Each structure stands twice: as structure tokens, then as C-alpha cells.
């Protein structure tokens, strides 16, 4: 596992001068992921905040090979790049016979959980040697905070607004990490940039595997979460300590490991309270919703512990 000093020597694959918002989680995640990659990288990126902010012609923040194709096809696109690599390497073209690459796709929750899900599922099932990173900020932030299937229950978004009758999003979020584990691919993990050591280790592990891997990374969006720019990682830690966002990994579909167990699992309010998107939940009439969310979190955490063999 690389130290920060080592990681810093692999810096520079994502330059400054991109136009992500101040305090954006995606920028932090990309930098950590790329620092963990030891080979030259080809990145494919789904349409979304990251892509539109990092490659505004004639500028690119990517000091790597990079391709953006469309919103829903980052996984298919990188699978095509990887197929090209296999073919050209076998055919000894462009001197690729001795050249290794890391193929990494980035997508937001919109491009991953929703519109890009079919492409992702297909690429994973086909077994390409690719790493797909979802930076999950829980809504379509690029287009102005519309709900996605990753939006947590109760969140106020522009298409699940907290109104007089409906208190924000009424559904629980899709647990995409579990869904990806159900593909029985070699490696699936959930991580967060606040825990850089865990995230970079997971990236190193994923890239060392001869097959597909998927890492779901919680990504703060100060604008969409309605949180102060500097507080992003602090709030991310509460997501982990409340078990809203457990850190875990799944190998070959069945082998679950919990990477971090909070000594004192904190109540879900601590995750919800600092975020403006959940403000309405703290009205007295919505108390039952917080209870419902807490129950859901507890059940899921217990299920994960059971899968990981931590409890019977």
C-alpha cells in the first residue's frame, strides 16, 4: 500500500485549471484514483460534472489519454479501448506488446446508476480488464440537482422537491455496489475520499486484477448537498460513521469484507443534519421519516455484517 509520499510522486495526471466547483468531491476522487494507478492510464468519462468541467475545448485537465463519448456509455467506450489494446498488443502494433495500461472509467451516479447502467452491466459481464469508478454525489448535479436512483430518501432535489405534500425523495437509494457484486466479477468495493488510504488501496487492488472491477465512491457536492465547501470530507466521514456509506469490498460476488466498523455507530441525524437538502426532515411532522431512514440503515448494516461473517 502506497504512502502519501509515494502517491505524491505519481501526481500530475489530473492538472489544475479544471472548472469543477470549489470543494468538489469528484476532483478529489480523480486525483486519488489516478495517483494510485501505476501504469499509463486511459480514462473514459461519462457526460457529467467531471467531464464538462475537465475538458472544455481547447483545454484538458487530463494529463493522460482521455475519451468522452456520451452520457450512458463510458463503460462500453472503455471496453472498446481495452479490446483495441488487447488486439493491438497481440498483433504487436504501435510497440504495445511490452506496454501495460490501466483502463479506468469515471461516471457520476446519473451516468452509472441510471442511464449508464446497461452499458456498465454489459461491460462488467463481458469481463474486460477495466476499473469503473462511480463518483456518487446522489443526484444529477451537472444539470441542476435532479434526483437519481442514487438520491437518498428524503433528499430535496429539483425533481424530488420537498413540497407541501411530498417531503423530498420518497424512495430509498439503489444500492448499486450490491448490484455490481451480484455480477460476480472479481472485485467490487465501496469507498470514500475522506479515507484516502482505503480508497487508494482499493484502486491498487482493482487494477492488479485481470478482470473487471467496480468501486463506488461517495462524492460530496457542496452545491447539491447544501453544505459548506470546506466541510465536504468531514460530512463524508459522518456518512461512514452513521453507516449510511459503509466501506466494504466484495470479491468474486460472495466474499464480503467490511473495511471499517465505527466504534460507535452514530445516529443518522448526524449525517442528515448538516446538509441543506435534508433540512425539511427535521420538521416535527417528518420525524417518522428519519426513523424510517434509521431503520433502513440499521437493517442494511446488519445485512452487510452478516454477509461479511461478522455476525451470525
Amino acid at each position: 500500500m502506497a504512502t502519501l509520499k509515494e502517491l505524491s510522486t505519481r501526481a500530475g495526471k489530473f492538472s489544475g485549471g479544471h472548472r469543477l466547483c470549489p470543494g468538489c468531491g469528484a476532483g478529489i476522487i480523480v486525483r486519488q484514483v489516478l495517483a494510485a494507478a501505476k501504469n499509463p492510464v486511459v480514462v473514459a468519462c461519462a457526460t457529467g460534472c467531471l467531464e464538462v468541467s475537465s475538458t472544455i475545448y481547447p483545454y484538458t485537465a487530463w494529463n493522460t489519454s482521455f475519451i468522452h463519448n456520451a452520457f450512458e456509455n463510458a463503460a462500453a467506450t472503455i471496453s472498446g479501448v481495452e479490446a483495441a489494446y488487447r488486439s493491438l498488443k497481440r498483433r504487436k502494433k504501435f510497440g504495445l506488446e511490452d506496454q501495460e495500461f490501466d483502463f479506468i472509467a469515471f461516471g457520476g451516479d446519473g451516468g452509472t446508476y441510471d442511464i449508464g447502467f446497461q452499458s456498465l452491466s454489459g461491460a462488467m459481464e463481458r469481463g474486460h480488464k477495466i476499473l469503473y469508478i462511480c463518483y456518487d454525489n446522489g443526484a444529477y448535479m451537472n444539470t441542476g440537482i435532479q434526483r437519481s436512483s442514487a438520491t437518498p430518501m428524503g433528499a430535496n432535489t429539483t425533481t424530488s422537491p420537498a413540497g407541501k405534500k411530498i417531503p423530498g425523495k420518497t424512495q430509498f437509494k439503489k444500492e448499486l455496489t450490491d448490484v455490481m457484486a451480484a455480477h460476480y466479477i472479481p472485485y467490487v468495493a465501496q469507498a470514500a475520499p475522506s479515507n484516502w488510504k482505503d480508497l487508494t488501496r482499493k484502486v491498487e487492488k482493482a487494477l492488479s486484477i485481470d478482470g473487471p472491477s467496480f468501486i463506488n465512491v461517495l462524492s460530496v457536492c457542496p452545491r447539491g448537498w447544501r453544505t459548506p465547501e470546506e466541510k465536504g470530507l468531514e460530512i463524508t466521514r459522518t456518512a461512514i460513521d452513521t453507516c449510511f456509506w459503509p466501506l466494504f469490498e466484495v470479491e468474486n460476488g460472495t466474499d464480503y469484507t467490511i473495511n471499517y466498523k465505527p466504534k460507535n455507530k452514530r445516529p443518522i441525524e448526524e449525517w442528515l443534519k448538516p446538509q441543506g437538502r435534508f433540512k425539511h426532515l427535521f420538521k416535527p411532522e417528518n420525524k417518522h421519516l428519519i426513523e424510517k431512514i434509521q431503520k433502513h440503515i440499521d437493517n442494511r448494516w446488519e445485512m452487510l455484517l452478516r454477509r461479511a461473517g461478522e455476525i451470525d
Partner: protein
Amino acid sequence: MATPAKKPGWRDIPIGGRIEEAGNAHKYHVGGWRIRRPVWVKENCIHCLFCWVFCPDSAVEVHDGKMHGFDYNHCKGCGICAQECPAKDKAIEMRPEDVENKFDN
């Protein structure tokens, strides 16, 4: 409407919207976005590099594993570095940006 004089015409740019200089966003300065400015307090710095690993803007300069200050051309002033600095006496302070020191890099 007149075409902006400085930008190249269609014959003079690579085809297909390809950008042929990787990482050239480095030439694009976003320091002007800043309303708060991180200031490195060198004597308090323990060179843990947390500021570097958590910076969204690649604006913390590290050489040989040591913090070397900020790249104010690319720092947007989010304040994560100061927030995450674990030094007993913070090695990064956020100060209000002002016109005079905004571009002094």
C-alpha cells in the same frame, strides 16, 4: 458580429475536437474564482500531505514528499486543506482574498 480575432480558424485546429496537448488546462487559471485564500504557515507544517491528497484542484505543491505551498493559479479557495490540516497549530489559514494579493504569484 465580428469573429474574435485571436481564435484560430477551422483550417488551423486539429480535427474532431481532439486536444493534442495533455493536461494543458494547467494554462487555464482559475485563481480568480477565489474569495478566500489558503496561506501556508510553514513553521507549523508537519508535511503529512493531507492538504495535497484532499485538494480537488491540484493546487498544493509537493516536491520530494514535502509541502511547498500553493499554486494560486489553480486554487479556488474551497478551504478543505485548512479544514483537514491535522497539525496542532494549523499550518494552513484561510484569509479573505483581496484585490491586491489575488494575482501575486
